[in-house]
């Protein structure tokens, strides 16, 4: 693949693995039941942790009595929050200096003196089995005095509202305003002004494998090994080492097979720190596996937002101004170290992002509630920003009497007008809204679908067609939020690649795989550059003792950042292989190539020497080389973005739904995605990221919500009560790619993992409202439950 802006490279050669779909090694193990997840690992003398958690959303802890629990059979340790505090170097404060003015209260891994959310750990019990630990936990008695609860984001800043952390002065975590162009003038120029308020429910990630950690401290030498279901091993190393006062270089984090993550597992959790502290105190391995109720209560939550929006358009449909006002709900603390304000920040960054308008005003207030902390979950902020922006564009189109697809055609950024800056101030380049839109129209057979919709409407069957264009921030750069803001989170990433004496290649990467196929993608890149077969390349990830320092996998960065590091490292190793070959063969390296495991003449493809022979000589028979040539056959390359905040991608989704106006049930008939993640390394893996992502977005749009009552008690903490998408209700999803390589790397790959999730809620809400249009009804609340649909129709 190449277009006019990119010269042909080694990746475009006929024998390249780029653009081919290889199967994943991890998949072969998983289908045989041979996956190795954290809970599958057992160590000698291993103990198990269980936690006593606050049953109240806000309560003073008057007394904690653990004496009886300590007497229970098989119990090794009972630790209170206060006892744990003594093992910690200090509290966490979940702020980043990159978010100006944000504030959060100090927090310890377990509650001390006061619990601020239901589920906050208070006492840890460690015993020979999880069952024994849970039995003993029942003998812990805690005396509480309930405190006033802040449960509603709408009233959290009212003067009469109780303040969760009095030292902060109010319940405000963060406030931000973007005011670009001249919204007042834009509104004055508009013929039509539409405003609407949207509500988004609180979600959680619901990875099938829950949070899991096994800590193994070796007291004789002070080495700490942690096996954990984490996307970000080096961040866990840094945070756990610093929190518990262990030298960072003596901490090894191993992320074995991960049973789903979705951003849930880029965070640090108090119960996991407590478990590690227990291992350090006891000098024995201690395991903690969250059960499903603990997951619902204590995994990070996301998405709870109310957004007011206003759009002004000319009668020809040109967007003149866009405004949003976002009230975003955090939990009782800002999540350390990534904070709880990214969601709101991203909503501000990306709402209306596909369009050419200049006048944009966006404001957010993020408020603390007595609920579990919120933080980054797949497609942070995008489902909300896209839903709001795309719903307003649809309403404006209707008011103008313009077809929704045509409305977008008139307003999206032109493909030949990059680089440019969006109304939100985001630098954009290498994007393809126009190509994506026309491709979607073709693949949906848009015109005929409208005809079909009309036919059904005449029969009393209400079908709706939705369109939603989107941008997606992927692969954050160092100029962004984390490292700059003071968190130990790398935005660079690295690959160390080695030629072994056998001719095999070991490729060690800082980014991690959770089943997306990151390791397969890196194998394809390295094998292509080195002219080797994929079987000759082994990729190692998820072990801080083995891999170069990196940020791990978050924000759709693995292929975009880690892939470029692997590409460049492979090029350097290739150069050394050819240089050694040139010396041995008395040929100019530039006249040589590597094809199918052999160094060949570029001119006639004649085999000169095998790569394995270079490996053998380079390690065992170095005397064959002159003294001034010392092979290393090992390269580390680090890659980072330079000035860009993110590598932005773009795309557009289409949905076809049927709404039963008597029951409010929504049936998904078809779904299309055209997206541009730049160079596609593995088409099948990219497609499946989009499909799985879409369904995760559909879940949020239709079913999922963590329901709390007025006392901030979670009402639906089981999988029986928290509805997730299952196979029976989901549609097939048609995925297409436009490939505009990013110009910030030679590989040209952008992120793809969150594009489905980011826009699926928007396209579904537009499709549902398209179906409801004859009834003058409009759904503005997600999840769009049957009750919500009926309420919009005025029938309940």
């Amino acid at each position, binding site marked *: 693949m190449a277009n006019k802006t990119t010269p042909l490279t080694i990746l475009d050669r006929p024998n390249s693995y780029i653009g081919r779909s290889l199967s994943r090694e991890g998949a072969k193990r998983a289908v045989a039941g041979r996956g190795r997840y954290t809970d599958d690992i057992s160590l000698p003398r291993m103990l198990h942790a269980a936690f006593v958690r606050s049953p109240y959303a806000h309560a003073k802890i008057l007394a904690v009595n653990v004496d009886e629990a300590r007497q229970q059979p098989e119990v090794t340790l009972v630790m209170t929050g206060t006892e744990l505090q003594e093992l910690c170097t200090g509290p966490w404060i979940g702020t980043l200096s990159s978010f100006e003015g944000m504030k959060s209260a100090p927090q310890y891994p377990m509650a001390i003196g006061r619990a601020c959310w239901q589920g906050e750990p208070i006492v840890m019990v460690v015993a020979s089995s999880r069952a024994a630990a849970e039995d003993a936990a029942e003998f812990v008695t805690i005396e509480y005095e309930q405190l006033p609860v802040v449960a509603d984001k709408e009233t959290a800043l009212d003067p009469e509202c109780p303040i969760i952390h009095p030292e902060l002065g109010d319940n405000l975590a963060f406030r931000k305003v973007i005011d670009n162009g001249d919204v007042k003038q834009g509104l004055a120029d508009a013929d039509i002004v539409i405003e609407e308020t949207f509500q988004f429910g609180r979600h959680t990630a619901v990875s099938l494998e829950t949070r899991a950690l096994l800590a193994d401290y070796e007291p004789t030498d002070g080495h700490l090994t942690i096996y954990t279901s984490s996307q970000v091993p080096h961040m866990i190393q840094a945070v756990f080492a610093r929190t518990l006062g262990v030298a960072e270089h003596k901490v090894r984090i191993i992320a074995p*097979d991960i049973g789903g993550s979705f951003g849930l597992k880029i965070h640090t959790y108090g119960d996991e720190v407590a478990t590690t502290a227990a291992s350090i105190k006891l000098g024995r391995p201690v395991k903690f596996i969250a059960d499903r109720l603990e997951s619902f209560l204590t995994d990070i939550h996301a998405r709870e937002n109310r957004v007011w929006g206003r759009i002004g358009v000319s009668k020809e449909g040109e967007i003149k101004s866009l405004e949003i006002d976002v009230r975003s709900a955090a939990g009782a603390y800002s999540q350390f170290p990534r904070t709880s304000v990214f969601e709101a920040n991203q909503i501000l960054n990306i709402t209306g992002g596909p369009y050419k308008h200049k006048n944009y005003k966006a404001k957010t207030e993020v408020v603390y509630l007595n609920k579990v902390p919120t933080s980054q979950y797949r497609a942070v902020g995008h489902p909300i920003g896209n839903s709001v922006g795309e719903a307003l564009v649809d309403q404006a189109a209707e008011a103008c009497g313009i077809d929704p697809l045509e409305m977008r055609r008139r307003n999206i950024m032109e493909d030949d007008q990059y680089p440019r800056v969006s109304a939100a101030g985001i630098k954009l380049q290498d994007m393809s809204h126009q190509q994506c839109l026309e491709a979607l129209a073709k693949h949906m057979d848009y015109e005929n679908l409208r005809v079909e919709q009309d036919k059904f409407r005449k029969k009393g069957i209400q079908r709706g067609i939705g369109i939603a264009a989107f941008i997606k921030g992927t692969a954050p750069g160092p100029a962004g939020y984390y490292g700059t803001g003071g968190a130990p989170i790398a935005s660079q990433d690295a690959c160390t690649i080695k030629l072994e004496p056998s001719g095999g290649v070991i490729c060690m990467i800082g980014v991690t795989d959770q089943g997306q196929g990151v390791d397969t993608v890196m194998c394809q890149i390295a094998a292509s550059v080195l002219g080797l077969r994929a079987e000759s390349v082994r990729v190692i990830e998820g072990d801080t003792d083995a891999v170069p320092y990196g940020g791990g996998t978050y924000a759709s960065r693995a292929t975009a950042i880690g892939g470029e590091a692997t590409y460049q490292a492979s090029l350097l190793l290739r150069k050394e292989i050819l240089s050694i070959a040139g010396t041995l063969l008395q040929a100019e390296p530039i006249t040589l190539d590597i094809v199918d495991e052999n160094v060949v003449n570029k001119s006639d493809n004649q085999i000169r020497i095998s790569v394995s022979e270079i490996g053998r000589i380079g390690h065992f028979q170095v005397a064959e080389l002159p003294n001034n040539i010392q092979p290393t056959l090992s390269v580390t390359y680090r890659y980072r973005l330079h000035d860009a905040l993110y590598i932005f991608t773009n795309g557009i989704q289409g949905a076809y739904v049927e709404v039963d106006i008597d029951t409010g049930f929504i049936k998904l008939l078809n779904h299309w995605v055209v997206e541009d993640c730049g160079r596609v390394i593995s088409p099948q893996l990219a497609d499946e990221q989009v499909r799985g992502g879409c369904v995760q977005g559909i879940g949020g749009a239709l079913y999922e919500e963590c329901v709390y009552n007025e006392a901030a008690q979670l009402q639906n903490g089981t999988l029986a009560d928290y509805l997730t998408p299952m196979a029976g209700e989901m549609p097939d999803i048609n995925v297409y790619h436009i490939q505009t390589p990013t110009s910030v790397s030679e590989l040209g790959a952008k992120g793809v993992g969150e594009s489905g999730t980011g826009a699926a809620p928007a396209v579904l809400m537009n499709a549902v409202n398209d179906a409801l249009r004859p009834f003058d009804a409009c759904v503005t609340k997600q999840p769009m439950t049957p009750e919500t649909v009926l309420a919009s129709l005025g029938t309940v």
Partner: protein
Amino acid sequence: MSEETSEIKLTVNGDLITKIVNVRQHLVDFLRLELGLTGSHLGCEHGICGACSVWVDGLVVRGCLMLAVQADGGDVTTIEGLTETGEIADLQKNFVDRNALQCGFCTPGMLMTLAELLRKSELSSREEIREHISGNYCRCTGYHAIVDAVETTISDRLGDS
């Protein structure tokens, strides 16, 4: 709490097993903790997600809703045992080729459930395949690729027979 125990005899993946178990231990904890058969997973311990699906006497059961003592005298098959028989080798290969799994945590339960569908040796529509696995939660794939892999397996089998 003192543990009440009971001796059970059962067949697991063709092996005759005699063990003393805690009466409150459910079948999957027994398989995972006592026998090291870690291919069966726990996702919810509530009978919803299907990750713990195993066969008992030829029927798919939720291993988290059945106690180990209830399997006394029974014939239990897990993903490890079913893999060794080769009965679903084609389905497993199609899962890998079609990338019908990502994290793989739901996959053993999904395959145990699908093996039941394949035993019917009938053509199934995509809707019927979806319905059959509607009690198996997968967060990664969105199910489309799983349906593809099953469809291919069924059509290959019927084409061969």
